[in-house]
C-alpha cells in the first residue's frame, strides 16, 4: 500500500475523519463498558451529565481543564519545533515547588506584586529544567525524549525529598506536604464559593499569547520552519539551535505555570499527588488540537470533561474510572490516523 497526497477538500470532508476518530473511540469504550457488564448508552449519558450536566459539573470540568491547557500548550509549542518534550510532568512539579518556596511567607508582599513574581519564578524554574535536555540535544545529540522522560522520575523523587525535608509542613501530622501558601499568594476564585479560579483566565490568556507568538512573530515562523525541516531551516539562515533553546524555555515555562496555577489557585500547598499525569495528558491535548494553541483550550476542556464525567459515572455505575484514561489514549491514536487520512489517500498497491 502507499499514501498519496489528496487535493484540498471541502470543510465537511476534512471534518469527516476527526468525527470518525471520535466514533471509533466511543465504540471501543462501549465494548469495555459491555465487558464491565454495564449499558454503554446509560454510561455515556452519565459521563456527559457528570462533565457538563449542571453548573457544578461544568465548573469542575473547567477547573480540571486549567492545568491541561498549560501542559497542552507546552507540548504544542515544543512539538511544533519537533522538540519532543515529554517532561511536562516534571516541569509542572518544579513550578509547584517555586510557588511554595516563594509563596509561603518568604516574600511578605501584596498580591498584585507577589503573584506575578511567583508566576515568573515558576516559569523560570520550568524553563531551566527543560533547558538541560535541550542543551544535551543540541550540543551532544542526546535524544530529548529519553532525558525528559527520565527527568520526570528524578524530579518527583526530588519533590518527595523536599516535602520530607526543607519544605515539610511542621503541622502536617507527618504527611509529605508543604505549608499552605499565604493569602496574598492565592489566585482568587472566579465565583465566590466555587473551585474555578483565575488560573483558568491565565490559561486562556496564555493560549492567546502563544497563538500570537506562533502565528504573528518571527520566532513562531522560525519554530515552524525548524519543525518542518531543520536542514532547510539551517540553510535558510535560521539559527536552529537558538530557536530550539527558545522553544524549550517557552515550553518548560508554560508547563510550570500548570504547577503554579494548581498550587496557588486550587490546592494551596504542594503534595506528591499535585498532578495525576497532567503532563502526559498534555500530549494528548496538544495532538487532539493538532498543535494549534487555541485548539488546545477546546481539547483540554474535552479531555477534562471525560475525566470529570468518568469520575462521576464510576461512582454510580461501577465501571472503573480508568476508562477515561483508555478513552483519552484511544482518542490520541485514532486522531493521528484521522489527520493522516484527511491529508493522504491510501492506495492498496
Amino acid at each position: 500500500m502507499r499514501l498519496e497526497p489528496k487535493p484540498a477538500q471541502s470543510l465537511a470532508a476534512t471534518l469527516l475523519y476527526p468525527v470518525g476518530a471520535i466514533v471509533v473511540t466511543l465504540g471501543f469504550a462501549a465494548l469495555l463498558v459491555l465487558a464491565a457488564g454495564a449499558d454503554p448508552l446509560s454510561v455515556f449519558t452519565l459521563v456527559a451529565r457528570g462533565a457538563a450536566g449542571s453548573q457544578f459539573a461544568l465548573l469542575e470540568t473547567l477547573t480540571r481543564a486549567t492545568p491541561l491547557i498549560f501542559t497542552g500548550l507546552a507540548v504544542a509549542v515544543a512539538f511544533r519545533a519537533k522538540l519532543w518534550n515529554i517532561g511536562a510532568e516534571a516541569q509542572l512539579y518544579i513550578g509547584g515547588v517555586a510557588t511554595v518556596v516563594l509563596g509561603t511567607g518568604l516574600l511578605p508582599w501584596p498580591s498584585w506584586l507577589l503573584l506575578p513574581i511567583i508566576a515568573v519564578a515558576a516559569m523560570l524554574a520550568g524553563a531551566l529544567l527543560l533547558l538541560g535536555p535541550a542543551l544535551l540535544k543540541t550540543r551532544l545529540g542526546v535524544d530529548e525524549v529519553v532525558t525528559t522522560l527520565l527527568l520526570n522520575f528524578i524530579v518527583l523523587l526530588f519533590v518527595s525529598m523536599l516535602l520530607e525535608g526543607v519544605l515539610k509542613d511542621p503541622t502536617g501530622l507527618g504527611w509529605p506536604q508543604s505549608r499552605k501558601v499565604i493569602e496574598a499568594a492565592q489566585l482568587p476564585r472566579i465565583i465566590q464559593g466555587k473551585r474555578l479560579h483565575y488560573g483558568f483566565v491565565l490559561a486562556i490568556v496564555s493560549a492567546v499569547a502563544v497563538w500570537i507568538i506562533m502565528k504573528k512573530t518571527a520566532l513562531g515562523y522560525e519554530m515552524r520552519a525548524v519543525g518542518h525541516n531543520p536542514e532547510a531551516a539551517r540553510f535558510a539562515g535560521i539559527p536552529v539551535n537558538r530557536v530550539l533553546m527558545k522553544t524549550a524555555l517557552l515550553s518548560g515555562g508554560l508547563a510550570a505555570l500548570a504547577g503554579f496555577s494548581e498550587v496557588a489557585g486550587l490546592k494551596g500547598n504542594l503534595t506528591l499527588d499535585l498532578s495525576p499525569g497532567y503532563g502526559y495528558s498534555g500530549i494528548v491535548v496538544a495532538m487532539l488540537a493538532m498543535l494549534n494553541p487555541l485548539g488546545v483550550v477546546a481539547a483540554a476542556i474535552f479531555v477534562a470533561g471525560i475525566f470529570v464525567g468518568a469520575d462521576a459515572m464510576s461512582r454510580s455505575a461501577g465501571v472503573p474510572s480508568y476508562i477515561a484514561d483508555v478513552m483519552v489514549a484511544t482518542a490520541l491514536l485514532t486522531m493521528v490516523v484521522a489527520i493522516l487520512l484527511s491529508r493522504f489517500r491510501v492506495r492498496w498497491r
Partner: protein
Amino acid sequence: MQALDILLTASFWVAAIRIASPLIFATMGELICERAGVLNLGIEGVMTVGAFAGWFTVYSGGDLWTGVAVAAVSGALFGLLHALLTVPLGLSQHVVGIGITLLATSLTYFTYRLVLPEVTSPPKIEPFAPLPIPGLSQIPILGEALFSQTPLTYLAFASVAVVAWVLYRTPLGLAMRAAGENPSAVEAQGISVSGIRIGAVMAGSALMAVGGAFLTMSAFNSFFFEMINGRGWICIALVVFGSWRPGKALIGAILFAAFDAYQVRLQQLTGGVVPYQIFLMMPYVLSILALVLVARRATYPRALMIPYQKGER
C-alpha cells in the same frame, strides 16, 4: 571498607543479575525494533501489559510458562498495533509510541480494576522458584550469581544469544539490519521492508512484555500499579549505551543492575544520613549519564524513525 566488601558477597551479585533480567528482555526487545528502523516508545506500556497478563494467567489457574506465553502474545499484539500505525501509515513514532504506552497502561489498570474490584492488597501467586544448575552454581560468587537464578533469568540470557545469532548470522537478521540502515536495498532484494519492520516490532514487543512478566512472576509475586516505574525508558537508554549491539547492551544492563543493587546496600549502610530519595534517583540519573557518555560516538541506525514508502527514495 565496608562499602567495598559488598562487591565480594555472592548475594550482591545474585541480586544484580536478578535486577538485570527484566532489563535484558526489554532491552533486547527495543534493540530489535530499533535495528529494523522503528523507535518503540510503547515499551513502558507493553511491559505493564506483560507484567499483568503473565501474573493474571497464573492467578486464574494457568501454569507459569503459560503465563509467560500469554504475556508475550499480549505484548506482540500491542506491537502489531504500534507497527501498523508507524510502518505502513508512517505516523510519528514518538507520538504513536507514547500513545501505545498510555493505552496499554490504562487498559491494564482498567482490566485490573474490572477483574479485582475489591482487593486492597494485591493477591499473590506462586512465582518461578530458583533453579540452581548442579555443579556450576557451586563456583563461588560468579557461579552462584549466574547459576542459582530462576528459569526466566536463564531465558533472558538465552534471548541475548538468540537475538545476536539472528541479527548477525541469518539472512533474516541481515534484512532486519538493512531495513534499519538502507531500506531501499532491502526492497531491491525483493524483501518487504514493511513486513520486516512489522515482524521486528511484534517480536520486540513480545520480549518487552516478558520483561514485564519477570517482575510479577519471578522478582515479585504480585501485580501493583506503576510497578514498571520507568524501567522501559531506562532500557531505551541501555540500547543507545550498548551501541545497538546485543552483547554490549547485555553488559550495560548488568552494569546498570549492579549499580542499582549496590545503591540499595549502600542505603542500608549509610543508615538514613542521606535522604533515601537520592538513592532512588540513581538509576535514572545513571541512565542520563550513560547517554551523555556515549553521545559523541553513538551511531544511530541510519533509517531509525524514517518511515519507508515503496518506490520512494
